[in-house]
């Protein structure tokens, strides 16, 4: 049973980690908490339903499910990335030199706008995600793993490894690190700050889109308000791991998922949401910069 709870937590934690990456990357570069990020995740979940519905209607899902899923993931990433890109251009870029509170308020505004936009266009009721495949489960050491859980954990893992590789090894990733360290200096050595910021938003939103899509497939139920609580949890995960640190966001997300599942499993499920915040308070008291954060 303990292992089963670990698995439950790991699945949930992978999703948190993917969303938390978007928060932490944006914070690392702009020192802005992008509160609209949770809504991007929600939009990703809706786009998943829309595209899969479309592919089912034209018969692609019955022809090849893998192809349909792949296209859905790709299209959701493209759409969400363009949402992220546009939001940055409209809501944050004009405020780049404003006091720090202004972009924060702008972010909250974008979040409210996106929620209501989705509510008005898609309706206020829960949308049911079409069950695509018989969710086969197999037992391993008395732990039941469903194919979707496996898919979520693997996808999240692969994406995180790719992201780490991108940031560490590629030219663009190195430029990103440089901008995070010192914007003025980076621009002096010829790095285009605007491009880097746009790319950060595009990557972060893409990851959120994948997280949204996976959650929609996993639970099969989506509504316009899921972004709020997921966003807060992922933000907690980012702070837990040390906001601004990519490694921190990954671990923070997974720790949060595990704490929630073990807390709900062994203490009481009534206060599931509270455990995350209790841990956050403890970490902030003991190690204010977060687990992997740089000291201030």
């Amino acid at each position, binding site marked *: 049973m303990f292992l089963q*709870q670990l698995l439950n937590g790991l699945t949930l934690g992978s999703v948190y980690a993917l969303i938390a990456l978007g928060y932490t990357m944006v914070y690392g570069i702009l020192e802005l908490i992008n509160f609209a990020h949770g809504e991007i995740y929600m939009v990703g979940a809706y786009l998943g339903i829309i595209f899969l519905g479309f592919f089912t209607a034209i018969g692609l899902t019955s022809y090849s499910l893998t192809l349909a899923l792949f296209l859905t993931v790709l299209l959701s990433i493209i759409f969400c990335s363009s949402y992220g890109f546009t939001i940055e251009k409209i809501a944050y870029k004009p405020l780049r030199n404003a006091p720090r509170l202004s972009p924060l308020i702008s972010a909250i505004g974008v979040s409210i706008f996106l929620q209501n936009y989705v509510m008005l266009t898609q309706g206020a009721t829960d949308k049911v995600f079409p069950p695509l495949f018989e969710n086969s489960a197999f037992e391993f050491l008395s732990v039941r793993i469903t194919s979707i859980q496996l898919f979520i954990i693997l996808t999240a893992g692969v994406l995180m490894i790719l992201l780490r590789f991108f940031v560490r090894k590629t030219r663009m990733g190195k430029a990103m690190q440089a901008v995070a360290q010192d914007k003025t200096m980076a621009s002096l050595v010829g790095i285009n700050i605007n491009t880097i910021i746009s790319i950060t938003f595009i990557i972060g939103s893409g990851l959120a889109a994948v997280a949204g899509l996976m959650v929609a497939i996993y639970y099969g139920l989506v509504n316009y308000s899921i972004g709020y609580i997921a966003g807060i949890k992922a933000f907690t995960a980012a702070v837990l791991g040390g906001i601004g640190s990519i490694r921190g966001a990954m671990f923070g997300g997974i720790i949060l998922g595990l704490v929630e599942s073990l807390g709900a499993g062994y203490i009481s499920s*009534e206060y599931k949401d509270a455990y995350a915040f209790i841990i956050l308070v403890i970490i902030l008291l003991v190690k204010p910069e977060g687990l992997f954060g740089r000291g201030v």
Partner: protein
Amino acid sequence: MKIILPFPPLEKGGKGGFERYFKMKKVLFISLCFCLISFGCQKKEAVIKIGIAGPMTGDQAKMGSDFKNGVSIAVEEWNNRGGVLGKKIEIVISDDQHDPKQAVSVANKMVNDGVVGVIGHFNSSCSIPASDVYNRAGIPMISPGSHQSTTTEKGYKGVFRVCGRDDQQGKIAADFVITNLKFKQVAIIHDKTTYGQGLADEFKKSINGQIKVVYYGGIVQGDKDFKMVLTTIKGEKPELIFFGGIYPEAGLLVKQAKELGLTAKFMSGDGTIDPKFIEIAGSNTAEGAYLTFSPDPKNIPSAKEFIEKYQLKYGELGPYSIYAYDAMNILLTTIKDANTTDGKTVIDKLHTMEFTGALGKISFDAKGDVTESPYVVWITKGGKFVEYWRP
């Protein structure tokens, strides 16, 4: 004669002429508003206003619209027959968003609008605080779906409901599990709402001593991941999971229980009777879930006409549409019989009347509850809900 300029000339220093001009305009505007309001008051009502209050938007918007549609059919029928007491009926639709605070505020608003009675609210958590407002105003309220036992326990004469009470539902469910399923171990989950926990507690109380409760706990409404609590439950090996709550969580619970390989049967209350429950869980997974609910309207001969009318106009019948329809008919019939819209007279009359409507015979006891317990057990079968067991 002086010529009045559209803008007075600017003065040097001090307050600008513009500012003064706009101040004057503001005064004019406010006084105009007062004129309009007083005109509105002078106009004598040629209609009888009846309030409808329920969750018209938000995550329970479907319940709200089912309920509104049922009421609309009743009102349309009455208006086609020439209204009541020689006046047309007008419904005032209010959205309480299943939020208790909002419920009180819309209740006050409807009372100020001059409604003579209210059909609603839908959720118990809204009906209870709103009933204070209606009681003070001395108008009757008839709820189509507030099952919480305490709704009618406040000692207000004007509070009625056409649905059953949770404690009746919990009892029937317990009765069924004891006598029909003969299970020995059950797990109980609720969603911490007045409705969910009330139902779960009543079930727990009724099985007390006869069946072992291996797990009792709450989940958060709106949450999507219940694998943790289900994993714990799986370790306790119950034969049945009883859930006090509504369909989105119920659907996810059933689905995730299957994914974890839990074989326990699932049982819940009337809040789960909704096609979305099966849609969320998947029709194979939802198969065999037991639900307590009122008898199938399709089996009631007197409901046939209403159901046909409803389906023609709005499509699939919602679980509470017919209750809303009967509630409206009861109120209007009583107003007609009392020959007045005076709240006190109508309330007194409601306690003594005997009404035969789409649901069959309905009469109220001293508390405002229906005199006959209306619950039976249903089961999901082939992606549909069917009546299964009568006590």
